[in-house]
């Protein structure tokens, strides 16, 4: 009797301790960018501290990632335990109840250290639904030597008027120097990221408070006309098919006087290994039109856990580590401060070594702080988002409108035609979506 009780006790102890000892495999869907690839190499300290957790990475191109994780979470497929998602998805998915709140990432996580602009984009009803791993805004990168030669001085906070004048003055098409390089490739995250923020700063908005599309308003006409005229006068040939990478290549090879794009580009254009103009680059805030709003966007890559996950505790442990200050210090120790994931924590920008190693740090922080996704437009709007409208329909609408604007840049349609078509497309989709009766 005594022996059988002991046996029963031993079995119970083993059974109870099993979940703690059991090996948990976390499948992490992530995006192919330098910071995420670096993290995959540096997970040693985490797995050493959590020998019961195995990490399985699935790296994908951004659009493939978005399609796969959206399908998986919407159908509760359960293929991924942690998903890398943008600040476009987080508020929409959180509202749907698809994400677990992350308000208990540990005592030393220091959630208040997260940059307020980034944190607010990931928060719904005072709860954080994804932890930021990487953040960016947009800013002006310009060639100091070309500005000097043209007798121009770039202010820290330029206006669109100045940018237009400077771009035209710098342009020397005979020598393949183009005053400005901007995105022209169609897509909601391509040309529309730039044009939407440009429009915000020029007083335009996607929708009024009744969700009526606003492309028939003068502010949009001014924006698109300014963009098309500027690129026609001072942009590179074939600009309607240029995205981030094409403009990066043009800038790095000395063919652009200015480039307005993601702050992350600063580390590329100042890297002498790839850039021929590494020591001739200056930075400024995204321009404004004197209406109180700057054309700065805000993007972050974040780690979230699908609701209903059976591995939530292990996933939280990993996210808490991957987005912590300790991870930043680990990257700095192994790869140098210039390689730490930017744009998420205040403490990083207060670090003197980081400020020294990353000359673009101060401007990146100012750009992120200048972006306000909760009030990005001059007139009131019923939506949030800087370079996007945080509604599920925006991906489709944004890309369709982007195609119209790209056609206008390519000279296949006039500005008025492109705006008319954009208005019709958006109106039709918003009616279909039930926003307009």
């Amino acid at each position, binding site marked *: 009797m005594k022996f059988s009780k002991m046996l029963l006790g031993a079995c119970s102890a083993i059974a109870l301790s099993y979940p703690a000892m059991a090996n948990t495999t976390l499948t992490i869907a992530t995006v192919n960018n330098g910071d995420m690839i670096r993290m995959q190499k540096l997970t040693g300290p985490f797995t050493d501290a959590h020998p019961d957790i195995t990490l399985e990475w699935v790296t994908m*191109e951004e659009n493939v990632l978005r399609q*796969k994780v959206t*399908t998986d979470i919407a159908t509760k497929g359960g*293929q991924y335990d942690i998903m890398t998602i943008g600040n476009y998805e987080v508020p929409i998915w959180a509202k749907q109840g698809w994400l677990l709140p992350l308000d208990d990432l540990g005592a030393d996580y220091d959630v208040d250290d997260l940059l307020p602009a980034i944190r607010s984009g990931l928060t719904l009803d005072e709860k954080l639904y994804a932890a930021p791993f990487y953040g960016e805004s947009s800013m002006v990168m310009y060639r100091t030597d070309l500005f000097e030669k043209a007798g121009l001085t770039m202010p820290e906070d330029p206006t669109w008027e100045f940018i237009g004048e400077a771009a035209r003055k710098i342009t020397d098409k005979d020598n393949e120097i183009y005053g400005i390089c901007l995105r022209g490739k169609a897509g909601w995250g391509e040309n529309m990221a730039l044009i939407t923020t440009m429009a915000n700063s020029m007083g335009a908005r996607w929708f009024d408070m009744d969700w009526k599309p606003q492309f028939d308003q003068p502010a949009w006409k001014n924006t698109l006309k300014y963009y098309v005229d500027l690129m026609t006068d001072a942009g590179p040939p074939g600009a309607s098919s240029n995205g981030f*990478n094409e403009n990066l*290549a043009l800038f790095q090879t000395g063919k652009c006087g200015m480039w307005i794009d993601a702050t992350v580009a600063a580390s590329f254009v100042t890297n002498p290994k790839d850039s021929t103009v590494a020591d001739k680059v200056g930075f400024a805030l995204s321009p404004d039109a004197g209406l109180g709003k700057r054309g700065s966007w805000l993007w972050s890559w974040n780690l979230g856990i699908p609701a209903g996950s059976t591995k939530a505790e292990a996933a939280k442990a990993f996210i808490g580590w991957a987005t912590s200050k300790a991870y930043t210090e680990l990257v700095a120790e192994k790869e140098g401060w210039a390689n730490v994931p930017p744009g998420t924590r205040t403490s990083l920008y207060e670090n003197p070594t980081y400020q020294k190693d990353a000359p673009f740090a101060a401007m990146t922080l100012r750009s992120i702080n200048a972006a306000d996704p909760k009030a990005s437009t001059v007139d009131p709007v019923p939506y949030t988002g800087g370079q996007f409208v945080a509604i599920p329909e925006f991906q489709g609408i944004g890309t369709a409108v982007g195609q119209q604007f790209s056609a206008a840049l390519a000279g296949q349609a006039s500005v008025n035609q492109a705006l008319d078509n954009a208005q019709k497309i958006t109106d039709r989709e918003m009616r279909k979506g039930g926003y307009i009766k």
Partner: protein
Amino acid sequence: MARTVSTRRRLAFTALAWTIALALFFPILWTFLTSFKSEGAAIANPPSFLFFDWTLENYHEVQERSNYFHHMWNSVVISFGSTFLGLLIAVPAAWAMAFSPTKNTKNILMWMLSTKMLPPVGVLVPIYLLFRDWALLDTLAGLVLVLTMVNLPIIVWMLYTYFKEIPGDILEAARMDGASLGQEILYVLTPMAVPGIASTCLLNVILAWNEAFWTLNLTAAKAAPLTAFIASYSSPEGLFWAKLSAASTMAIAPILILGWFSQRQLVRGLTFGAVK
């Protein structure tokens, strides 16, 4: 009497054939060359054809980042598995349609082909839900099943075309000699249609190897084939052409070698019955 072709005409045709062949091969050659460039050299304009600093850095990085052999094994299982399963279904189906046609045979063939006209994304969600419920997501079995279904119309059509070229009298003679249905298909029909079956196999393996919609959408880590391996090297922010080219070269190498060794069989099968 054979038609005489002038030397000049022959030279012109040879030059034209070479030009077309080189134009078709150029993208593969360019991918191969780019895989040995640095990321900076890969985007340089004007591009350098041969005179650049050759490097193996991209292959090193791809090997370090990804488990190539895991993805390749998955591709092998998926493409050969779906081809084998497809043939098991398609050979009897094509036999029935070729030798025992009914008034609806043509309609059935057209209906089968019409399923290829539907954009696959149209049925993504229902298939994803079925796979979720049957626990087939991210499994090799699931991918073999779905690729079999995707390529079945093509296999049936190709085999049907080849079988139609075989005289029915031979099969009838076999039946009169007492061959059962299985024996007739296995010992009489199949040997005569070997070139056709072989080229169907090869084409199906290539189609399954390159299939990039279902293999991307229904896999995560365990069953991800080489298409997922390539897709992981594209990036909208950051230079990636050289690494992507290295990954692509590694992904297409096995199927290119297979195609090279079996090209005679493939051409023979594809032209089977063209000249009577």
